[in-house]
């Protein structure tokens, strides 16, 4: 059968034109609607996780004050906060949200190559979220095993949520992985096969490179989580001993024997570490486009940026055991993983240099998306540098399980990607809604969030140096943590509450602007990439009207000398083209 990419299938039937309200907004197969559905659910569930973090902070800042926070509830809040933020918010919003919205638009296609599968992906994601949230309402509540779900604790008596919460968690993860796989197959196939005319791989915007590589990582890494979830489920339901060692439960020998908890850790982190980059790579890509656009300068070292994304993706599968230095391992093993961990800093640092060099001598517009993007560079450098400390076995061992680690990973994969999310949400808001947001509110939101997160996480590094252990419900009295640390903890809590409240500004802004914002032009930022060149804003079903765009240049023609505007859209033929190709004519 002749190969016909979807991008070339112009008949309305193949595009699944929505006919009714239900097919347009609910059972929609349009990538833009699915993206908004993904984004809405992810942000909603992220707000729940934000609320849970406030519960944790209330307990840590003001112990013995809130009677409704008992140890079980605290651990459940810790667990659900971590899992929701990493998987159900960040992964889903970057790939399900931005991936869905941007891939077809930036690749110049009418939709994903498998729209039905794409729709299923969202509904499976929603189901996984509902199963996860349902665990709050079952006897015993959600699991409190920590987001890593380490065996044997996660399925042992006495752990909160042992009665059913852990099962709900495993089922929810399984459904999420199915949803991700369906979405991921779509993203990969669309990017590889359905790009419009002239859009070679090296003309793709870095957003697409980031999303693509992260998707490939996800497709390879999530199987490890699936395998560990299935095996843990076997141990839990059928009583096998894959991960469960012989141990005593309520004074009696449990029925488990011989299982390997370390095996669970290896499987979990074989997923867990690439997961960091599943979140980080789309953020790298999106922030590159935001920085380049608002600095009116081409991205510095485009090819290096692409190769760095790929190198980071490949290396991310070789560093997982640096999460397990204190689990006990052969010293040579530790040496290997410390080395690979430090090597991964090379392409990552290269990206940071390139962002800074893109800004250098650029015509920087300090609007809201750009502020968030620059804020990201700060927090990412900060979190990345502490990662270099922790990557070394000898430094990690004293700092493991202290607040230094909490501060590190929140800076590098909590705050940084979230700042990029805000940068990207503000940057693409005019395209998605057709309205401009309120700049002043956006800037106030930025400064509250940016400074507030530093007020939260900088002191945590210090607490970590003091040796304050993470995961503790309350500290009690110790010799090594001075009483003044409690004052610091109270301040962190106040800062966390402040930052949480500040997010109201974001929601007020986006909802108010939906109706009252100034009407956005098709390309308000003067951007080059294809999504800003659609005939309608917001783009209609099918994206491109009568004819698909053709791409004549790379994605970063900003401030080209001698050109009348300070940007040249990717689909503009340009003089060189006219000179050399005028006989070839257009395209049909």
């Amino acid at each position: 059968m002749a190969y016909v990419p979807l991008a070339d299938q112009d008949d309305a039937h193949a595009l699944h034109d929505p006919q009714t309200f239900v097919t347009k907004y609910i059972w929609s197969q349009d990538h833009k609607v699915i993206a908004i559905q993904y984004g809405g659910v992810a942000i909603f569930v992220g707000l729940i996780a934000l609320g849970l973090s406030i519960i944790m902070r209330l307990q840590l800042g003001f112990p013995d004050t809130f009677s409704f926070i008992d140890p079980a509830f605290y651990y459940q809040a810790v667990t659900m906060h971590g899992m929701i933020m990493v998987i159900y918010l960040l992964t889903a919003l970057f790939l399900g949200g931005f991936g869905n919205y941007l891939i077809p638009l930036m690749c110049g296609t009418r939709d994903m190559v498998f729209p039905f599968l794409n729709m299923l992906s969202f509904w499976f994601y929603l189901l996984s979220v509902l199963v996860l949230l349902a665990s709050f309402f079952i006897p015993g509540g959600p699991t409190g095993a920590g987001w890593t779900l380490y065996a044997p604790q996660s399925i042992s008596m006495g752990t909160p949520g042992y009665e059913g919460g852990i099962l709900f968690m495993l089922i929810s993860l399984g459904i999420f992985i199915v949803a991700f796989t369906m979405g991921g197959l779509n993203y990969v196939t669309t990017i590889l096969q359905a790009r419009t005319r002239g859009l070679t791989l090296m003309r793709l915007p870095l957003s697409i490179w980031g999303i693509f590589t992260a998707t490939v990582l996800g497709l390879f890494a999530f199987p490890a989580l699936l395998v560990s979830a299935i095996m843990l489920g076997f141990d839990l339901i059928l009583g096998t001993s894959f991960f469960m060692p012989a141990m005593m439960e309520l004074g009696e020998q449990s029925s488990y024997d011989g299982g390997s908890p370390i095996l669970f850790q290896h499987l979990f982190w074989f997923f867990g570490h690439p997961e960091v980059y599943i979140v980080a790579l789309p953020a790298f890509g999106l922030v590159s486009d935001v920085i380049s656009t608002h600095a009116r300068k081409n991205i510095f070292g485009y090819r290096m940026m692409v190769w760095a994304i790929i190198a980071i993706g490949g290396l991310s599968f070789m560093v997982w055991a640096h999460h397990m230095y204190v689990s006990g391992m052969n010293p040579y093993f530790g040496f290997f993983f410390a080395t690979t961990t430090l090597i991964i800093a090379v392409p990552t640092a290269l990206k940071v240099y390139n962002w800074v060099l893109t800004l250098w001598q650029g015509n920087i517009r300090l609007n809201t998306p750009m502020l968030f993007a620059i804020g990201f560079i700060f927090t990412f450098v900060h979190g990345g540098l502490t990662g270099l400390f922790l990557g070394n076995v000898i430094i990690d061992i004293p700092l493991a399980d202290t607040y230094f680690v909490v501060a590190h990973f929140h800076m590098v994969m909590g705050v940084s990607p979230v700042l990029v999310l805000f940068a990207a949400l503000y940057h693409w808001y005019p395209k998605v809604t057709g309205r401009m947001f309120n700049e002043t509110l956006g800037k106030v939101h930025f400064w509250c969030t940016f400074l507030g997160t530093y007020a939260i996480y900088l002191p945590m590094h210090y607490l970590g140096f003091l040796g304050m252990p993470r995961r503790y419900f309350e500290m009690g009295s110790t010799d090594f943590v001075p009483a003044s640390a409690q004052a610091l903890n109270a301040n962190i809590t106040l800062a966390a509450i402040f930052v949480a409240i500040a997010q109201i500004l974001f929601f007020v802004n986006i909802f108010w602007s939906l109706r009252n914002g100034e009407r956005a032009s098709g390309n308000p930022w003067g951007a080059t990439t294809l999504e800003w060149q659609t005939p309608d804003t917001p783009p209609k079903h099918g994206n491109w009207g009568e004819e698909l765009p053709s791409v004549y240049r790379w994605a970063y023609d900003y401030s080209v000398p001698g050109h009348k505007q300070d940007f040249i859209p990717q689909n503009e033929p340009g003089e060189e083209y006219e000179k050399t190709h005028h006989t070839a004519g257009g395209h049909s």
Partner: protein
Amino acid sequence: MSLYRDVTNKPWDQVGLPDGIENRPVFAVSNERLALTVFMIIASVIFSLLLVSYYIRMGIGDWVPMSIPTQVWANTTLLILSSVCLQSAVVFSRKQSTISVVSRAGLSFGIGGLLAVAFVVGQYQVWGLLTETGQGVRSNPANSFFYLLTSVHVAHLLGGLWVWSKSAISLIQGSTSEHFRQTINLCAIYWHFLLAVWIGLFFVLANT
């Protein structure tokens, strides 16, 4: 190599349509074929990780190698025949202008799927047989892995059978869509893949 050329060129230097007026996918296959290939790679990762876990768990000391019931050999034969039938369906479908339920391609496709159903039923019977003879899922880690590996394999096959059944039903309803040719092709590839996986798993299970 065009992929190499693509990722090494200097995009800022080039203006125009480098590939003429045609758009150019990276792989010269249909989208469905590419997606299936990616899916098979994902499935391979799953089975590889299970096997790595298998070998790590085997080294712990309480491992008692299990004796594989003879019925597993019969089931394996069913799966081989199923794969052969689907491959025949591919060969026949290339020769036939239209594919209907009574055509050779249609019949081979149908029988191939039914043999796979028989394999699934056979595996289920093996689980029952093992449980009856005191070799349940908890009896020993080797047994636990037998249930785990076979059930994950069967789950993958059920996914294939879901696609097969949709096509089989529309064939029975008289549809003669050109789309069947591709479905038969893709089903056959997936069946061969799962047969190879099964033979690998069976080899490991029977020899350790």
